[in-house]
């Protein structure tokens, strides 16, 4: 049982929760995720950790209400408990000084991108963040990103804020103007697919953090398997970060829809 100590709405459907989890707060690193389960009959779903406070013993999760289970989690209030929370899971992001790093995030993917931005910046890299959203109200964590990077580029589909265009337009503008040594992308699978296609064209090494269907999250079930470089990998233990240029995003998109027809209300 893990208590929720603070709740903030980033938008109508996106919620930031700060949850008591002292052991995870202490052991987690950028890139790690947790598995969350709500109620006795709840589903186990993976959520990437968006931050931690070791003194308070809390971790931060950012959740978008999309399916039945994420809606239930978003409906929790301060003082409520998450029934089961386990982690940190997966391999941590490999952080080193590489030069210039472009971090491209979309949707709630922006939240788990924050600790990675922080870590690359701290390691002495020039970090440029590209944040993409449908419209101005859906842009999240802009201030925090500015505090830990050299530049933040905002892209909105409708042009209501920043530059009108997709995340790929933002990334391409940076590549066209300066040498980029690494790109990190987190967001909806379809977005990562297009970012990866773009950076492949420019031969910029790219890491994508994948969020697939999981059950146990420890390698036991294989629900999260994807194809990377022609080989089957488990996102939970081999990932969640992979060389984006090697990931079969079409297969991943197909597998993400496995339970679409039978998802429970």
């Amino acid at each position, binding site marked *: 049982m893990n208590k929720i100590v603070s709740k903030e709405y980033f938008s109508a459907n996106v919620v930031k929760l700060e949850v008591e989890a002292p*052991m*995870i707060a202490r*052991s987690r690193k950028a890139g790690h995720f947790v598995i969350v*389960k*709500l*109620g006795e*009959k*709840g*589903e*186990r779903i993976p959520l990437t950790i968006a931050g931690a406070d070791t003194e308070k013993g809390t971790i931060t999760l950012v959740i978008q209400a999309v399916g*039945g*289970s994420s809606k*239930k989690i978003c409906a929790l209030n301060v003082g409520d408990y998450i*029934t*089961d*929370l*386990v*982690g*940190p*899971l997966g391999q941590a992001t490999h952080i080193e000084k590489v030069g210039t790093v472009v971090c491209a995030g979309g949707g709630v993917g922006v939240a788990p991108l924050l600790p990675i931005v922080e870590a690359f910046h701290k390691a002495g890299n020039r970090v440029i963040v590209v944040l993409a959203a449908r419209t101005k109200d859906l842009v999240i964590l802009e201030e925090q990103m500015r505090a830990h990077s050299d530049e933040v580029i905002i892209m909105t589909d409708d042009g209501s804020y920043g530059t009108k265009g997709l995340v790929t337009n933002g990334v391409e503008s940076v590549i066209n103007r300066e040498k980029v040594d690494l790109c990190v992308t987190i967001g909806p699978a379809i977005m990562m697919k297009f970012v990866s296609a773009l950076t492949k064209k420019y031969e910029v090494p790219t890491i994508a953090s994948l969020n697939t269907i999981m*059950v*146990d999250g*420890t*390698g*036991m*079930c*294989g*629900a999260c*398997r*994807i*194809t990377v470089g022609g080989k*089957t990998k*488990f996102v939970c*233990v081999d990932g969640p970060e992979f060389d984006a240029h090697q990931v079969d995003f079409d*297969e991943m998109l*197909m*597998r993400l*829809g*496995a*339970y679409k027809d*039978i*998802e*429970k209300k």
Partner: protein
Amino acid sequence: MTTEELIAARRAEPWREALRKSKKNKERTEIPRVKMNELDAEYRSHTRLEEVNLGLTQEQAVLEAQRCLDCANPTCMQGCPVGINIPSFIKNIERGEFLEAAKVLKETSALPAVCGRVCPQEKQCESKCMHLKMGKEAVAIGYLERFAADYERESGNISIPEIAEKNGIKIAVVGSGPAGLSFAGDMAKRGYDVTVFEALHEIGGVLKYGIPEFRLPNKIVDVEIDGLRKMGVKFLTNCIVGKTISYEDLHEEGFKGIFAASGAGLPNFMNIPGENLVGIMSSNEYLTRVNLMDAANPESDTPVLQGKKVAVIGGGNTAMDSVRTARRLGAERAMIVYRRSEEEMPARLEEVKHAKEEGVEFMTLHNPIEYIGDENGRVKQMRLQKMELGEADASGRRRPVAVEGAIETIEVDEVIVSVGVSPNPLIPRAFQGLEVSKKGTIVVSEENMQSTLPDVFAGGDIVRGGATVILAMGDGRKAAAAMDAALKGC
């Protein structure tokens, strides 16, 4: 007292001698072996949760117990990985002291109601029964074990084994499956302060996520776990050693010994085209959804595919559990696809028999070579290569060889791959200095289950790579005895 002396002393008790003399051996051997009472096959193939084996009545149990000859040298005990004093518990059943029988079981087994259900007794204790030497069927030791354990539980008079004086020494157990539970029970009996760390949200490991309700009801596992709690064992769920807390953290917290029993966590796939199509999954995933997450229950948030034409690849007990589950979830065609013949199947005979009774089709000597999907990436067909048996291979079984050109395509809408598991890499990766085999199993000394790290012992599937509940429990017992000796400096 040595085991031999204990066996002899108990056998010499006056009541036991009188009981032995009350019937001639000939009368005992002439009693036919009891048949397990079972749920009707047609009915049970549509009921998700009801247990297939119903257990013995008191009358049946007492009569079956009379078949046991109470041998002076009970060879059956050599076949038991946890060394249950078999004649002693059976003779207590014969004289009607069922609670006493359960106590005898608990002396050496932390999970008698579980073992009475899922042990392959026909390959262990029962395979060494004296009756077999006389051309008769073995005493139904497994059924009797289940009877005594069930009787005790249902009576409400559940005994707690004797516990030595608390010594305050902290011991950590990684994983709450059969190896971990067996180890925890034995260490608690010796007075240690035992904490079991479990990665999942439920205690029991494979007993909960793997073995289906119709073969091993969860409530039976829970009662055995409660017994361990009453013995002072502490359980911590949602805690992954090597992730949530490290080896170093355990030392800092004062743990003096660690037993790694994290199981065989990684499902094997065959790496054939189309295997990542939607609708194809490991038996671990399928069974975890149904058993641990209760996904077939409309109240559960977890979804599960409920295919109409389901193929299960493999011939082991997990394959049988999966195919029988599929049948219960509404599969019109539930098929076992196995590349060898039925004779080589590793599954227990009882499981194969039950599966057949429930309408499962057996496509032996068939091997999948490719899966074909529809426009949405869902599996719709599989291509099967027909096989024949060739020369014997390293396992002593005849090697399956492809029959050239004999390929058929069948319609499927769900495929469950049950071709074994590999050890979970989490623990080996987290413990620096731990020697790991090429297969990823933890290397231990066979004598005492000690790893290359002196305070880390290991057992169960993380050492064996995929075995049975009872072998895992045997490892737990052995490791407990060895760790106890090591900590006492003897």
